[in-house]
Every structure is written in structure tokens, then in C-alpha cells.
């Protein structure tokens, strides 16, 4: 019998990130194979509030580790503490956010554990945990088992419905930070230039309006009214980001964010393999493109062949007609 450990994630302002709830969901789904319970670890400089929040999800324990050096996340400071606690567990999981992706392989290496990244499902087979992973830009799914005593994984946020609070109150346990190696003294957090937005987070939005290279310098001018009308988050293709029309954290795709909203509106996006990998899980896909042969149309539920600079304002006007 073994237990699972969920590594929680805090935002820069110290609040619990909702993405953590996907890792909890993952841990719960892995428990039938492990046979044990799950606990949660939260690290930061002031974990009291998020720990209290996490105590209502049915965890056997919520471990906290508070230290001024943990105020800003760096893998070099976080990994030793996570790895030390991991030794009591059979499986350690975080959500595949930019922090989860950065931290968990480093943790795995520290305890010589095998690692399954960005899993889209987890199941039990003959008492073993089986990890399902998208590979080749989502064109194949691989099912793998990890043969090390401790296993490490990250969960793809869009594939795991956030766990719901189950009431009760898990016991808290404080941990001292484990002294890091030499690497930690050689890395320094300088700054975080946050992209400020009143819109929902891309990975949590139920509607996304996404723009491609065709938008040019009018990316925001054209797309914001539509995003406003739909209450949507804004996304972008790589080409739009590379050209500087949209910020980097807008990028949807194989190597950007993976999203699965109920509505994804792709505007002036051709539908390259790498882009599709990040959005094909969307419930309904709309594409607006002037090229009737654009590959995005093969995927779209509703394709509109049109010049976006005319079609988007017309769409905004049409939406406004409905919702006065």
C-alpha cells in the first residue's frame, strides 16, 4: 500500500492557485492503484491561508513549509523539501503549470524516480498505476507504468476537473525547509513581469477568443470587443506571439497552454499541428478564416470563410443584438 502526495501551487500574491485542484483530482483517481490515502504539501513564505483552504479536500494531512526563501518559487529551493517528504509516499503529483513542469522533474531526479509528464488520465491496472500521456503533439496517446519505488507525475489541468471540497478538516503538520544544494545559492529571482488582465485565466476560461498572425497590430483592437461580448479569455497562435502582437503567455498549443473551453473561437489562425494540439479538446470550435482550405476548418464545428476584419465586428454587433 502506498500514499499519494499533492504539491500545491501558490500565486505570487500567496493565494492558492486553482490549478492545484486538478492535481488533487489526479491523486484521488490514482488511489485505487495505490491503496492508500493522499496528503498535500504547500510551500511558501506564509502558507496559513492556503493551508486552511486545502484542509477541506479530504487529505490525510496537509503539510506546510514556510520560509522567507520560498516567497518566490525557484526549483532549487523547493525541490529538496518536496523530495525529502516524497520519500514517505509512492506517488508525487503536481499540475503541469509552468511551475509544476519546472519543479517535478527536478524532484524526480533527486530521488531517482521515474516521471510521467502532462498526464491526461491515470488508472489502475493489476495494482499498478497507469499514466496516459499525449505525445507527438497529441497525435498519439501512450500508456506507461513507472518502475521506481517512488513515482512522480504532472497532471494536464484541462483533463482533470478541479476536485471539490469534501468538508472535514485535515490535520496540519509543519515541516522545516530542507537545506538546498549549492545550486540554490547560485540562482536569484529578479522579477516577474505579470501580464495584467481582468479576463479569466486561459486555462480556466469557458470561452476563449484566440487570434493568429492575420490580426497584425490590430490584435487587441479587433479581438477585445469580441472577448468582452463573450466574457472570454484571449489566446493566440505562436505566429501572433512571435510577431509581438500578443504576449507569450497567450500562446495556445503543443508547447504553449493546453485548453479545453466549452467554446474556442480561432480567428485568422491556419490550424498548424502544434496549435491544434493545444485546443482540440474544446467542446465547440469556431473558425474564421478567409482561406477555405485552411486546415482549421477540418476541425471546426462552425467555419466561417470571411475576412476577419469585417466578420469580427459584425459578429460583435450580432451578439450585442441578442444580449441588450
Amino acid at each position, binding site marked *: 500500500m502506498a500514499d499519494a502526495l499533492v504539491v500545491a501551487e501558490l500565486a505570487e500574491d500567496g493565494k492558492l492557485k486553482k490549478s492545484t485542484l486538478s492535481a488533487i483530482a489526479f491523486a484521488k483517481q490514482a488511489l485505487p492503484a495505490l491503496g492508500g490515502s493522499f496528503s498535500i504539501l504547500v510551500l511558501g513564505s506564509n502558507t496559513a491561508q492556503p493551508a486552511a483552504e486545502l484542509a477541506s479536500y479530504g487529505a490525510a494531512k496537509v503539510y506546510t513549509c514556510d520560509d522567507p526563501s520560498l516567497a518566490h518559487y525557484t526549483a532549487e529551493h523547493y525541490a529538496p523539501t518536496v523530495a525529502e517528504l516524497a520519500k514517505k509516499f509512492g506517488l508525487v503529483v503536481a499540475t503541469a503549470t509552468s511551475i509544476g513542469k519546472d519543479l517535478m522533474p527536478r524532484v524526480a531526479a533527486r530521488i531517482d524516480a521515474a516521471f510521467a509528464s502532462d498526464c491526461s488520465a491515470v488508472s489502475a491496472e493489476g495494482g499498478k498505476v497507469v499514466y496516459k500521456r499525449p505525445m507527438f503533439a497529441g497525435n498519439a496517446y501512450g500508456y506507461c507504468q513507472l518502475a521506481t519505488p517512488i513515482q512522480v507525475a504532472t497532471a494536464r489541468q484541462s483533463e482533470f476537473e478541479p476536485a471539490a471540497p469534501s468538508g472535514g478538516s485535515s490535520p496540519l503538520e509543519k515541516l522545516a525547509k530542507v537545506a538546498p544544494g549549492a545550486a540554490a545559492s547560485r540562482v536569484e529571482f529578479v522579477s516577474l513581469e505579470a501580464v495584467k488582465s481582468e479576463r479569466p485565466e486561459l486555462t480556466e476560461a469557458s470561452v476563449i477568443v484566440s487570434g493568429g498572425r492575420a490580426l497584425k497590430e490590430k490584435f487587441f483592437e479587433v479581438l477585445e470587443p469580441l472577448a468582452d461580448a463573450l466574457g472570454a479569455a484571449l489566446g493566440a497562435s505562436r505566429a501572433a506571439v512571435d510577431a509581438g502582437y500578443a504576449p*507569450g503567455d497567450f500562446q495556445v498549443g503543443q508547447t504553449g497552454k493546453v485548453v479545453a473551453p466549452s467554446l474556442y473561437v480561432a480567428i485568422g489562425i491556419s490550424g498548424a499541428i502544434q496549435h491544434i494540439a493545444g485546443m482540440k479538446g474544446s467542446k465547440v470550435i469556431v473558425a474564421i478564416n478567409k482561406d477555405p482550405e485552411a486546415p482549421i476548418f477540418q476541425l471546426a464545428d462552425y467555419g466561417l470563410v470571411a475576412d476577419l476584419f469585417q466578420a469580427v465586428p459584425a459578429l460583435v454587433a450580432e451578439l450585442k443584438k441578442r444580449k441588450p
Partner: protein
Amino acid sequence: MKVLVALKRVADPDNANKVKIAAGGTAVDTTGLEWKTNPFDDYALEAALRLTENGKTPKKREGEVVVVTIAPKEAETTLRAALATGADRAIRVEATDGDLDGRLVALALKSIVDAEKPDLVLMGKQAVDGDSNQVGQRLAELCDLPMATFAATIKEENGALLVGREVDGGVLTLRVKLPALVTVDLRIVSPTSVFSRLTEAGFKYNDGVRFAPLPAIMAAKKKPLDVKSLGDLVSGAQLSTHYTKFERPPQRSGGGKVKDVSELVEKLANVSKVI
């Protein structure tokens, strides 16, 4: 500065939708697809070249760039291409993809790092066949190196690098003292994303990676290429990640068209009920 760049060859990522699943679902079959250098590794090489030159005089290498791959003999074309583009030396560790998982690749690369003692290890953030995104982070831990993953910008300072990383909420800047490890993201090959200490502040590179001129391709054949065996680098090299099954994802049934925006809104509201 001495830079070690890890390169992997992958089945042509622009045709990844043509991968097949072998009968019985036991393997991914990429026959018919060309081998290409993992795009992120091409970018890592470009970043390594930019860090070891003055942008104005790219033919003059200031320092050394060593490339390494863990792959079968045919992958030497990948290494020769890197040598033609500007790398000085290459190392190939003999192994097939089936012999490897992220843990073993990192262990093998650690022994290369121990022997070569580079100031900087540069690699791709992920190999786009397995989409695993783990080797760099593992290697940094094994070598106790500070790391900056998903780098979009690198600026060399005295004995350190200032690295801009693309993270979920924006751009996070870290300073890592050398020796260090950096994994690169797409934007690292933009015109003003990498500055060595020699390159002037206003300098602009061409967008993307550089290409090898024909004479360099000939000359690259004479550059040193060492071959090592995986067993010599990692004792008892045993896989710990076992794939038991592969399958194709379900296909979407798309292809529907609407004639104008009012039909679109009508469908979204009354058929799909998403607005």
C-alpha cells in the same frame, strides 16, 4: 564560454499527424517521416552560437560549442549539421530510442557534463516526439546546477546569465551564476533575445536560426566526432518508464460551415447552447 548543447533527432514534427500506431498498439510507427533535429534543440544551438560570438562577427567563435546526442549512428547527420552551423565538436552516445527514457538520458548527459565541465548546458525545453519536458530539469539536479527553464531571452553578464522565462502569468527573470543549465523556448531565436558580452546592445539578429553555408558543410566533415557507449556512461542502464500501449486520439468530426455571422450566432445559441 564553453557551451554543451544536447540534441535529439525526432520524426518530422510538422507531420506528426501522420504517425501510426503499430498493430496491437505496442509502438508508435514513424516510418515514412523524415528525421529532423528537435526544433527546440536547433534553437538551443542557435542560442549557444549567439552566446559564443560577437553578433557582428559570427564566423569567429569566442569559446567552444560542443554538441551531444544519444542516438544510433544515423543520427550523426544531425551532429554534422550542427557542426556545419558552427559547433566545434560533437559526441554521440550509442543507443536507440528504445533503450532510453528521460531518467537514463539525464544520467548519461551527467557523465558527459562531468567530463566536459562546460560553463553552460543548453538544451531544448522538450523533445516534440515524446513531449516529455524533463531531461533538462533532471540534469540540473544531478549536476547540482542552477537552472532556468523555458528561456525566451538570455543576456550574458559577468560570470552569470540574466534569463527571461516565459511562465504562465508573464515573464519571470532569473539570474543564474555559471556554470548553469538553461532550456530554451520558442522566442529564444527572435532578433534581440540573446546577447553575449561581446554583442552590442542595439544589435539585431535575423529572426530564427542560421543556416550553414555550403563550404561549412564540407568542412564539418573534418570536425571531431567522438562515439561513446551508453553502458560506459551509466552502469546498469535500466529503463524505468515502460510503455504498455499506444492509441490514436479520437478524431473530431468538424468541417461544418456557416454562411454568415447571424447563422453562426444562431447555431451557437440554439444548437450548441454555448452562448
